[in-house]
């Protein structure tokens, strides 16, 4: 009887995330916090207005006290359900109120749940565009609308990537080119359309959401891929790690902190509870080395 009770309790504890398979190779916080570096946070699939989104918002605000990031990348599905003006308050402005009040800028991309008209919402800093790029320090960000990769968007990306002279090129869009999640997984048709361009122009890192887990993929053709789609939604236990998985966390909501310092990009994935579930560093490769791979 005692043994059975113990087994049941152990199972319940595990299901609640007590001994959840936190990402492998997850040392403690590893962001150097250099004064001249670019610091930003990454969140995806957030806009529920539910408790988990508020908890993540609080953890982000707490993290910012030690790691003063100046911008947040939003990976799409920034709003779920109804998207009337009041919903922008309940599903965006209130959960991230401390960050917004501190002057942190949010730069969003559109997911499948976002109204296309949300690109005009000032808080998302999209300038009314479905796809756009912007520069922060030595990094150029390319923001795409992966819902539909139409010919004008492809031409724009090819040209914008080719023109970019910044040290780092970081792309983000909603649907992942690589993912081991069970519900959606890798979007291979998008990958075939996009990846050659990303490789040709030496993109360093790609962030996506859509799958409601955190996952770091082993570098593919010289590019580091992250799935960070559990900022508000969560599909617990949806990760099915494969040979391409570097680390994953699917037991609780999570967000990312990133620091670009010179030729190094440091990252840290943080769970809703504040626990670090993954961290590491990516070294930028010289463009000529990348293009010869």
């Amino acid at each position: 009887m005692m043994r059975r009770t113990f087994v049941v309790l152990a199972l319940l504890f595990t299901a609640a995330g007590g001994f959840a398979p936190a990402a492998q190779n997850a040392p403690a916080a590893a962001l150097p916090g250099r004064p001249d570096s670019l610091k930003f946070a990454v969140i995806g699939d957030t806009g529920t207005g539910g408790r988990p989104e508020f908890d993540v918002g609080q953890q982000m605000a707490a993290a910012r006290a030690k790691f003063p990031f100046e911008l947040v990348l939003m990976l799409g599905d920034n709003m779920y359900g109804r998207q009337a003006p009041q919903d922008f308050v309940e599903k965006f402005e209130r959960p991230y109120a401390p960050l917004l009040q501190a002057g942190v800028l949010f730069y969003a991309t559109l997911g499948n749940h976002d109204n296309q008209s949300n690109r005009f919402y000032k808080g998302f800093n999209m300038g009314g565009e479905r796809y756009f790029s912007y520069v922060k320090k030595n990094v150029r960000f390319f923001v795409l609308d992966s819902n539909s990769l139409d010919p004008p968007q492809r031409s724009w990306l090819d040209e914008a990537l080719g023109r970019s002279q910044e040290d780092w090129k970081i792309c983000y869009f909603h649907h992942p080119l690589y993912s081991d999640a069970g519900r959606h997984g890798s979007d291979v048709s998008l990958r075939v359309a996009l990846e050659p361009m990303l490789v040709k122009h030496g993109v360093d890192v790609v962030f996506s959401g859509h799958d409601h887990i955190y996952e770091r993929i082993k570098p593919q053709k010289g590019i580091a891929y992250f799935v960070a789609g559990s900022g508000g939604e969560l599909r617990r236990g949806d990760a099915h790690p494969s040979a391409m998985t570097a680390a994953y966390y699917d037991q609780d909501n999570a967000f990312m902190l990133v620091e670009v310092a010179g030729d190094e990009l440091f990252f840290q994935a943080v769970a809703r509870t504040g626990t670090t579930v993954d961290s590491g560093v990516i070294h930028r490769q010289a463009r000529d080395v990348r293009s010869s791979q």
Partner: protein
Amino acid sequence: MRNHAAAAHHVQLRRHHRHHATRAVHHRVNPLLGLPLGVILALAWANTVPEPYFRLAQSLAFVVNEIGMALFVGLIMQEIAEATMEGGALHSWRRWTLPLIGAAGGIAGSAGAYLAYVTGRYELILTAGWPIACAIDVAASYYVLKSIMPRSGMLPFVLLLAIVTDLFGMLVVAATHPRPPAGGGLALLLVALGLAGLMRMMKVRAFWPYLAICGALSWLAFYREGLHPAFALVPIVPFLPHEPRKLDLLADPPDDDTVHHFEHEWNTLVQVVLFFFGLVNGGVILKGYDTGTWGLMLAALVGRPLGILAAVGLAVIAGWHLPRRIGWRQLVVAAFAASSGFTFALFFASGILSTGPVLAQLTIGALATAAGWLLALGIARLLRVGRFSRAS
């Protein structure tokens, strides 16, 4: 001796009959095979080794969807043009009205159900796909209905309804092509029309000069104006040599020398195009189903039949008459026979949307509307209509 001659004649007659039967079966089955074969191959390929499949599909997409499909659209337009000529089945406007009303009801029902579903799920990105929800697979609805009610007055009714619906969809797709205009197309189109008119005046009977010269110029004109170039043959079709036809699409005798129809001469090429169209557009990773998939199925399998039945019902109350010897049970079966979008839904999807997850989920929905064929057969059996009336 006489016995020997009679036996030889008998053998010759049997060979002749067998030859004609084979040709007829070949001609009736052939139009249905190219596209589904391509789709089946694409689905198997995309769900086993997706990367090579998508690489091939994306490299062929432009040639197949924007050049090859011009032949398919041209063929459909030729069918319609000939049917509306004097002596053609659609020449009398009276035959049009009730199917036209049914088509309007079907469009309203399918588009309404689709839009209600996707907006109810707050996925407004999917609303652009509403014309896909309206599409009806002309050939499939014809053959499904024919297999249930071989000589019914519902056959031309359903064909008219499907053609009108798809014409409407084509107009929407032509105007919503995701490519910006480059200009200069209008002048090219005028040259194409002028040359086609000249050929017509010179009584050029062969099709290929119209297609190769005028069609190519018109294609360039459409492309440069940002219109879907698959519709490039539409303005050229009225200049092609025409002969009136009964409304028995895809089923005229293939070896009748007096019949000089476009599809008899271009059938093989169009079948090759449709095979590649299925191969290029039908491959989708089945895990990609989502809200749009269910929206399309709801629109096709529920919204359209209900829309057709409601519109025709109101028309009958207002004084229109159903075709002779047709009752409500037959009409219900016909409405479900027209539920599948398949070929035309795939075509509209490829015309409106670009690579991405929205296209993927709607492609799965377009393919899944093929369930309407089974639904029509099941309802015919339930209502004991046509060949199922004898089962009792």
